[in-house]
């Protein structure tokens, strides 16, 4: 696959395998893929196809068994644990199917957490938190706890948290998986808005209609292998 210096993300023959008992599972099998800057790519596949594993590898939460992943031309395999943590903190933002907000913290505190981890000055934080929550239209729910919010609101809060450090890449793992279809569309609209502000989005989903409607390109995986590197459907 040709490489492009302007790619936000690039994987080169990435393989991730696990040992489960005596069996060797190849969750991701020699996947080479390129995501351009400000592109919105949907990773589509059935359960166990390896799409979440690939997303985790792109997020720097996991390391490939072989192959290489480049983010803005930096090889993630060459980063030490501290640099990888900084990459997760400042270059990528993540949202999950289960929202993963910390239940004992208010929305404001949840959104502030990545700023703490990135060692952003205390005086700057409040403005950044408000800005992120305004972006997802939750600025009036600052002091609410996640349990006081609907599923859609929680996912919007998770999006605000993912965006608060102003990442260039947003990785979304089944962001609509726990939501009804109307709320799912609401979240997808938000993702589109975010993408339009030059944020690259890679979204794992198994909902083809949403992927077709909102993403620029659909990449399909099956049994860990790339079966369609996808042109826009």
């Amino acid at each position, binding site marked *: 696959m040709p490489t492009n210096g302007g790619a936000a993300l690039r994987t080169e023959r990435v393989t991730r395998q696990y040992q489960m008992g005596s069996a060797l599972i190849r969750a991701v099998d020699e996947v080479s893929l390129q995501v351009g800057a400000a592109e919105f790519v949907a990773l589509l596949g059935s359960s166990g196809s390896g799409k979440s594993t690939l997303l*985790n590898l792109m*997020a720097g*939460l*996991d390391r490939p068994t072989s192959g290489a992943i480049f983010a803005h031309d930096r090889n993630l395999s060459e980063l030490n*644990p*501290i640099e990888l*943590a*900084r990459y*997760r*903190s*400042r270059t990528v933002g*993540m949202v*999950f199917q289960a929202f*993963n907000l*910390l239940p*004992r*913290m208010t929305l404001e505190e949840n959104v502030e*957490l*990545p700023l*703490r*981890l*990135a*060692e952003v000055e*205390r005086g700057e934080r409040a403005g950044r938190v408000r800005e992120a929550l305004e972006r997802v239209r939750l600025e009036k729910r600052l002091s609410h706890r996640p349990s006081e919010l609907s599923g859609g609101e929680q996912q919007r809060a998770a999006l605000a*948290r993912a965006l608060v*450090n102003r990442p260039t890449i947003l990785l979304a793992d089944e962001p609509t998986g726990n939501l009804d279809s109307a709320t799912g569309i609401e979240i997808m609209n938000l993702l589109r808005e975010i993408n339009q502000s030059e944020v690259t989005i890679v979204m794992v989903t198994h909902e083809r209609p949403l992927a077709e409607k909102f993403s620029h390109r659909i990449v399909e995986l099956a049994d860990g292998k790339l079966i369609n590197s996808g042109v826009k459907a």
Partner: protein
Amino acid sequence: MKAGDLTELAMRNLRESLLRNSLTTLGVAVGVASLVAMLSLGVGLQQLANRRLAHSGLFDTVFVMSRANMNFRGFSRRERTDATTSNSAQSNATPSSNTSNASSSNTSPDVTPSAVNGPREFRRLDEGARQEIEHLPNVIEVYPQVRFPTEVRYNGSPYATMVAGVPDSSRGNGSFDGMQGSFFSSPSADEAILQIEFAKELSDQPSSLIGKELVVRYAERQALAAQPGGDPAGGESSDSSGNPGISVVPKEKTLRIVGIIDTEAAAGPGGMGSGRVLIPQKLGEALRATQGNDLQNILRGSGSKPAYSNLTVRTEGPGQVEAVEAAIKKMGFGAFSLQDATRNLRLFFAVFDLLLGIFGSLALAVAMLGIINTLVMAILERRREIGILKALGAADRDVKQLFFVEAGVMGLFGGTLGVGLGWLIGRIITVTANIYLRRQDLPPTNVFAVPWWLVLGAIGFAIIVSLGAGLYPAARAAKLNPVEALRYE
């Protein structure tokens, strides 16, 4: 992550499982309390012993005497020579070196190594020497021993006893703490403090003696002018060399009783606790009462020139004794102190405190296991949270530090609470002990002491132990695989 943010998050986490973390902290507190209680007992006992020793006035004191006097104490020439030979190669030079001094021509030098190394002529321990010693660094007071036999007359009855001089510095060294009445109003007041047993001889109700007067009869020493070939007034005659003698004249002094003391104050070597009527040192010196060394001085030809049999040198503290003692020996006098005794005492208490500390630390070791258990439980409960933190950009180091701070905070609170508890235990034991002592007609005492170094040390130790306990859980939390942690329900 910045320290402030780490601490905030750690405090928040600790508040989340308030009961469990409070119980763990209480465990640390009990451990620290046990340690503090044990060590404060050791420190208190050491301070009590030191106070008692300080009251004796012996451990910040150097006793000085002329080497001529030391030679007078019954050592044979051969014994001393043997001693010096075994002590130093230089001893060969000393046996015949003092013959130039007429008064000591038949004696040999000091047996102490320092004496062997010192000047070969005996220096007189006179007023000049006293002033010279007074000017040594760290010396606060130099005084001769005033101690003489007397006949006390009270209510017309005679009582034979001993009078001893008490320096003014005794006012502040605790020797007279708990006495009835008061210390002397001035360093040369015509006042007396009676030892309780003697006071009981004077009256069935000793305390009623305070404010009353008694008469002390003593033999005053008066110098005679040298009258070669003739008999001096008073019946004493000079020797063939014209050395005058002294005249002994009976005198009386009326003293007002100002206090009664339970114990006998120390009066130095050879006179420890021997005074039953205590008078101000300066008054004692001014009385010029005949003392044991007067005869000795006459025999040596000192005659009317006043010389002291010994001097007591008070230093600023036990730490200065060694240097002062060495300086005095260098001046050519015999000197000794009881430093070795204090050194052994310090060694004893160091070992005692160490043992108490080890026993006290056992409870803290148990508390350490409690911290490990609590934090391991916290890892299990917060597994997903750790995964989220890592996904949001936390490095392994951040997670490790977070658990460390949580352990440290438990140590800090536990340590602080423990010090308070330990102090409370000490107070309870002290109060209980004093109730018991009072019932036994014994004076109350404080056997517990919680000095600042113990407070800070115990809190610091609790934090260090807690951080030690947090090592394993923190490392375990930091190593969690974020992908697996995020999957954890």
